[in-house]
């Protein structure tokens, strides 16, 4: 066994946690992969913030409809039972706390659940935020999907975010390639280990001390 799972396996792992009937927004990038693994026996409603609830999979090329796209500006379809709405209504849906789950990428997540995912604060970079800040604070459960470590080997789970914040105390769970972490009262709690990772090993990788989940916690 490896110490890491690949991105598609991680997407499938997240998909498995999304319950029947959930309303879900999948952020641009890797989180979009989660859609491919949603269990076919569950009805799950995907929301895209540009105005559609009940989003379906991409169409074949000959059926691309420029009027039917997702937040990443990729062509999509609409399921039977879908509904269209305007941008303010769509963000009201998120900001009003009506979505069950949002899956986002991250540069950093702090022990308090702070999220940094919109800017590395690099000098001269052109800032762009899109819907990231609305997504971060809107959903009932904000899941982060990310590698545990950067390419330079630095932990993305961190005591305090050093990058510009997207939202305060908003992340509820982090799905990484090494393990799944809950944001708990005393810091991150390991929920599930992938491969032959151990809590000790992850504490060494991240430099953090993890809270212990109560026995019998869901």
């Amino acid at each position, binding site marked *: 066994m490896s110490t890491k799972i690949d991105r598609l396996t991680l997407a499938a792992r997240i998909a498995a946690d999304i319950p029947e009937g959930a309303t879900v927004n999948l952020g641009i990038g890797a989180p979009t992969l989660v859609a491919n693994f949603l269990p076919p026996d569950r009805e799950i409603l995907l929301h895209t913030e540009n*105005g559609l609830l009940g989003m379906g999979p991409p169409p074949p090329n000959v059926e691309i409809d*420029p009027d039917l796209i997702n937040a990443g500006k990729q062509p999509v379809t609409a399921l039977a039972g879908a509904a269209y709405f305007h*941008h303010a209504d769509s963000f009201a849906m998120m900001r009003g706390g009506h979505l069950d789950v949002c899956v986002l990428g991250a540069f950093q997540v702090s022990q308090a659940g702070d999220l940094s995912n919109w800017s590395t604060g690099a000098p001269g970079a052109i800032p762009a935020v899109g*819907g990231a800040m609305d997504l971060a604070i809107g959903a009932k459960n904000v899941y982060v999907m990310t590698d545990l470590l950067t390419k330079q080997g630095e932990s993305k789970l961190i005591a305090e975010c050093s990058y510009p914040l997207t939202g305060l105390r908003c992340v509820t769970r982090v799905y990484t390639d090494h393990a799944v972490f809950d944001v708990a009262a005393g810091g991150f709690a390991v929920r599930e280990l992938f491969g032959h990772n151990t809590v000790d090993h992850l504490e060494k990788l991240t430099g953090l001390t993890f809270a212990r989940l109560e026995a019998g916690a869901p």
Partner: protein
Amino acid sequence: MIDKTVTDVATAVAGIDDGATIMVGGFGRAGEPAELIDALIAQGASELTIVNNNAGSGDTGLAALLAAGRVRKIICSFPRQNDSWVFDQLYRDGKIELELVPQGNLAERIRAAGAGIGGFYSPTGVGTHLADGKETRQLDGRTYVLEYPIRADVALISARTADRWGNLVYRKTARNFGPVMAAAATATIVQVDEVVPLGALDPEAVVTPGLYVDRVVAVGERRWLRDGVFVGGVDVEGRPRKEHV
């Protein structure tokens, strides 16, 4: 008789002043008022403030307006895209001002302008750089940031169908910013595929009531429809796919 239709896009955008604040609808190609933007470029107004979700892409549409040096400031949520080279260069050269607004605050601030709201406490952006210097407030146990309406002199939007009173219906996710921008601008100018007789639109399904609309211009059916039926044959930007050229 009320008739908001005009015969061509040049007439539709006539009279837009230098220095105007202009909301431009659309999210990607969906809902982009492409013909009106071209007409605005030809019309010549400059020193504009543009409100749009993005800051132009490629070399057409908004990007062409920027490249023509007509835009002083842009208010948007996501200026940086793979193909936003026109904006990128202007920004790096210090030739354009940027007000970056989280997308939900952008939509809600535009909505507030149309609804007569003087300001509102938003949950988005609290504790981030985009709330720097803004008033925050604890309400019912949660922290909010005070946001103000965004008004415009002109809105340029695209809808699928209108009648002569200016009632509008959109198509799928091309609805996006159209309805809120229509209500937030002093003059709302709309391009549509077609104008239908009064009474042909279902009053239950009208999304933008006509009182929000000032001028309507029919620009012909979008390339991926025929008599209102989706026929495809285009890429996501609406360009003919190779096998159809």
